[in-house]
């Protein structure tokens, strides 16, 4: 499944990921340098670029004007390409805000400085990468685009630069990237840039708090243009902006881009923040001169005139002799015209074959050592030993989650003893599920192997955006980017914990394209499964555990492993087990905590009803092992899928559909929890969740 993606991009991405922090010796990306050098007359411009391609922009008015004007011309070109019908989709230009973009990015002079930007990212991107043709071609969906056409205007990636279209969605990632820099003792910082409208986004505050608690170098930059899309900030902002930074103990600065000393002041703030190794909050007052996107400006002419008069770029030009201005502008125009020609000349991005999934098959990771399990270990002990083993043998491993520290050791005691044994590597966090998920992504992007714990699986919904819009997008868009993170969490009911502490939400997450969902049981070697999820699978994994199984002994009983098929993804790591009749009257498919219930039901069906019962117990729910498990089930005559989850639109539905697609002709039944809350009272809970008796009764209806 090859991605149509320029090889040089993969090279960049690999640098971003594989050796992100040790990058003093990063080589210049040669293909891009040639492209810029040959096809676009960089020589005419007065900027040099450092060995990462980053333009070196001085603080003098001439330098600032030249680069600001270059950004403005490029934005205008992009809008023109739209009006010529050469671009589809959307774009957000930074017209009027060019100096704001330049001020922060130009000050990021450490090779490990990272930038997380947003929808209005072109100025940030150009100041960071110097790749003008790459940007324009990307927005046009051309092969020469910096992300091969996967990203478009809003999703750009270049070395430690990432932007994304979810407002504030990357703030947690920023906290994680900053923590990674702190843990490694790097001098780099992370600038996470948002608009003032995004001050309404909750994740921002989780991230600011995390960075504050962790004393991690995250600089939150607010580009305060007084408007969000079409809404005036009067209607979106309660309280003061700087007060927000101060409330979290962040060093806070505020500057306006029409202040003649603006860029110098920002540079001083950035270097002060860098020196402090603490998080900061930088508010930049600016005005948006153009529309939010394209042709969607509802503001009155008076207001637009005021903004135009205030234009800080024009103010800079006025400081320069007119001949200087004219030379700069002529050079810039010639340069941008060459950018246009280069982008136009690049063919449309294409795929040789549409990928069936995001995974690279058969990338064999070296076989890790596995923890030695004492005979008779329980599920809890097995998971604990695996985590201990990972911490002992791989310095990249970090545990992160709420209340993980000793003597408490996590709500279900899975991490007990580990914070004592591995100081600094078991991180107990604030109650910020989305924030720590983002941080986990950031840590994994920077080469760590974070294992995050969510106290109850019900809270995974708070992590959804981070998984759905972020974790899976990196490896999805960029084949070479690994996001080797594992999120562990206890699922399930039968404890009387009630509606928000008893659910099995696997079905919500198996639906996330590219997320690997593992839900093992005491019949699996859970310690090995977890070790493999951490060390041998480079993609985000949701690792589900059932509360009732923690005290169960790991015991494979009479289960055999169904061999993984060649076209299965990850089934060799997370196997499907089966036991019982080879010519069954009925096959029960079950996993996680429900497996124990299915086994009890199977015993009764065998003993009381003379039925030959087979049990199929997958540990991998997504990607579904179609080549092995589904092919096996498709040949059966009666299949009953038993799950604890709210099963409508769920895992069982997907299994059933896949079976039909594989030629299943028999009878099928799904058993799960009806779409109602799981009540607290044990008596109510009993009648809501499928149990041995209800499984037996429903199976018997097939006969």
């Amino acid at each position, binding site marked *: 499944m090859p991605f149509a993606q320029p090889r040089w991009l993969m090279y960049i991405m690999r640098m971003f990921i594989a050796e992100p922090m040790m990058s003093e010796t990063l080589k210049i990306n040669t293909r891009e340098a040639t492209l810029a050098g040959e096809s676009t007359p960089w020589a005419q411009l007065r900027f040099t670029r450092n060995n990462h391609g980053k333009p070196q922009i001085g603080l003098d008015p001439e330098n600032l004007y030249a680069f600001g004007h270059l950004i403005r011309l490029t934005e205008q070109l992009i809008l023109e390409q739209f009006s010529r019908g050469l671009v589809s989709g959307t774009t957000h230009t930074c017209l009027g805000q060019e100096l704001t973009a330049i001020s922060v990015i130009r000050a990021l002079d450490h090779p490990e400085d990272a930038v997380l930007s947003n929808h209005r990212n072109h100025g940030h991107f150009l100041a960071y990468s110097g790749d003008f043709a790459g940007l324009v071609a990307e927005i046009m969906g051309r092969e020469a685009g910096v992300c091969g056409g996967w990203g478009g205007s809003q999703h750009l990636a270049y070395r430690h630069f990432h932007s994304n279209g979810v407002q504030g969605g990357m703030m947690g990632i920023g906290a994680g990237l900053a923590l990674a820099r702190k843990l490694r003792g790097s001098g780099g910082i992370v600038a996470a840039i948002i608009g003032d409208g995004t001050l309404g986004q909750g994740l921002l505050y989780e991230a600011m708090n995390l960075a504050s608690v962790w004393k991690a170098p995250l600089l939150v930059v607010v580009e305060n243009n007084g408007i969000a899309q079409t809404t005036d900030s009067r209607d979106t902002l309660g309280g003061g902006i700087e007060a927000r930074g101060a409330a979290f103990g962040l060093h806070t600065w505020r500057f306006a881009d029409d202040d003649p000393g603006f860029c110098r002041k920002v540079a001083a703030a950035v270097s002060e923040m860098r020196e402090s190794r603490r998080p900061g909050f930088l508010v930049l007052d600016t005005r948006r001169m153009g529309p939010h996107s394209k042709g969607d400006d509802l503001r009155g002419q008076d207001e637009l005139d005021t903004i135009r008069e205030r234009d800080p770029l024009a103010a800079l030009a006025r400081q320069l002799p007119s001949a200087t201005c004219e030379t700069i502008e002529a050079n810039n125009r010639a340069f941008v015209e060459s950018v246009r020609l280069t982008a136009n000349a690049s063919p449309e991005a294409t795929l040789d074959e549409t990928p069936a999934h995001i995974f690279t098959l058969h990338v064999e990771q070296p076989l890790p050592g596995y923890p030695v399990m004492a005979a008779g270990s*329980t599920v*809890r*002990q097995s998971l604990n030993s695996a985590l201990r083993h990972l911490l002992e043998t791989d310095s990249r491993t970090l545990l992160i989650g709420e209340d993980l520290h000793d003597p408490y050791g996590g*709500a*279900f*005691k899975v991490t*007990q003893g580990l914070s004592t044994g591995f100081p600094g590597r078991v991180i107990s966090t604030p109650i910020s599920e989305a924030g720590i998920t983002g941080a986990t992504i950031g840590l994994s992007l920077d080469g760590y192997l974070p294992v995050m714990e969510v106290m109850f699986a019900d809270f995974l919904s708070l992590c959804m955006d981070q998984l759905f819009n972020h974790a899976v997008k990196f490896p999805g868009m960029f084949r070479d980017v690994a996001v080797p993170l594992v999120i562990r969490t206890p699922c399930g009911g*039968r*404890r009387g914990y009630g509606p928000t502490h008893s659910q099995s939400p696997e079905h919500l997450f198996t639906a996330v394209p590219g997320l690997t969902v593992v839900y093992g049981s005491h019949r699996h070697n859970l310690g090995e499964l977890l070790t493999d999820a951490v060390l041998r699978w480079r993609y985000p994994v949701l690792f589900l555990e059932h*509360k*009732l199984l*923690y*005290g169960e002994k790991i015991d494979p009983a009479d289960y055999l492993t169904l061999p993984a098929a060649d076209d299965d993804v990850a089934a060799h790591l997370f196997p499907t087990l089966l036991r019982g*009749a080879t*010519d069954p*009257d009925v096959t029960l498919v079950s996993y996680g905590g429900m497996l124990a219930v299915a086994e009890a039901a199977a015993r009764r*069906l065998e003993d*009381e*009803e*003379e*039925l*030959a019962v087979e049990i199929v117990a997958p540990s991998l729910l997504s990607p579904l092992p179609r080549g092995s498990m589904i092919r096996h089930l498709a040949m059966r005559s009666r299949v009953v899928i038993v799950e604890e989850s709210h099963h409508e639109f769920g895992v069982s539905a997907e299994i059933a559909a896949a079976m039909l697609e594989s030629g299943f002709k028999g009878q099928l039944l799904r058993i799960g929890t009806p779409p109602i809350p799981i009540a607290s009272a044990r008596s109510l809970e009993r009648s809501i969740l499928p149990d041995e*008796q209800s499984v037996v*009764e429903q*199976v*018997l209806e*097939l*006969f």
Partner: protein
Amino acid sequence: MASPQTVPCVNINDEFVQIVSLNVKQGDFVKNGDVVGTVETDKSLIDVAVEQDGYVLRIDCAPEQKARVGSVMFWLGAAADEPVPEVISTDAEARNAAGRPTAKARAMLKELNLDPARIPASGERLTAADIEDWLARTGKTGPAAALPSPSTRTEDSPTVSGELLELSAEAAGMLHTVTWHRDHAAAAYLELEYDPKPWEELAAHYATQQKLMLSPLLPLMAFRLAALARERTLINSTIVNARRFQYRPVNLGFTVQVGEMLYLTVVRETQDMDAGQFIAALGEVQRHAMAHKLPPQEASGATLSFSSMARWNVSRHIPILPPQTSLIVAHAAPKTSGKAVLGATYDHRVLTGFDVTQVLLALSRPLIPGMTGTYHPESTY
């Protein structure tokens, strides 16, 4: 009123604890605060302290056992003889599937489109075996799954012209028998010679005593075989889906040739009969066979069989195993030789040659089970 002492919670997130020790017994008097045991999870161990004074009325758990937090450990009462409240199991009634055919049986009924009312159940519920018995008896084909695949394979019609005729019920039954023998049983055969005299004498003596007109030799030998099955239960069993199926009744199959028709007649429930009852029952069945009027229960459900070809003067015959049985004894007594032969076709999946030899040796020695005192065969030698 009796009050329960419940299993304490060790850790809020552990649903089950292990009972490590419990140092009280029924009738003991305990005082509030007494430590009477310990429970643990894999995390920690805690003492169980009694919560009120009282006599231990009943203990509902045992050391080494896993117990659910909140379930009853033991009951306490003010007097040692207070009653403990009855707990009604919630799923007891649901478990009671009384009367309904088993699910396996229902699947077969559905697949074969059979009316369960027509099929007698051997126990409380109609089972798969009941249906198979009935099928064999009525000569119908069993469920596809029970049929060996080669027999379901379609054969090409011969190229020479002709017509396809339906088999009679008996012929279909024979086809089923032969197919089962070929595809399921691991059939083996062995035989031993024995001196027929003592058995003949015993039979003659019995006939005189009981004033019988026909020689009871073969019925007596068959009855002896049925009796042997009570001690050697293996010969009254078969293999079903790689597990041994032990028959409860001993239903004795006995071949009867009537004209061109060979019947395997069956005397059911022989285990409760004495020799006289067996001979009478077999006589009745044989009469039905002679008239070609065997009811289904007399033509199916054999669990063990006996077949004699003494009448035909053959020196050896190797019978086919009736479906889902593991032994058929073949008797031959060529008149001229003065010797007789007891042979056996057996399913090697169930029985070894040694097992079968033991049975044949026992059977070769004349004995009428349940009859002592009147005649002792050994006394003639």
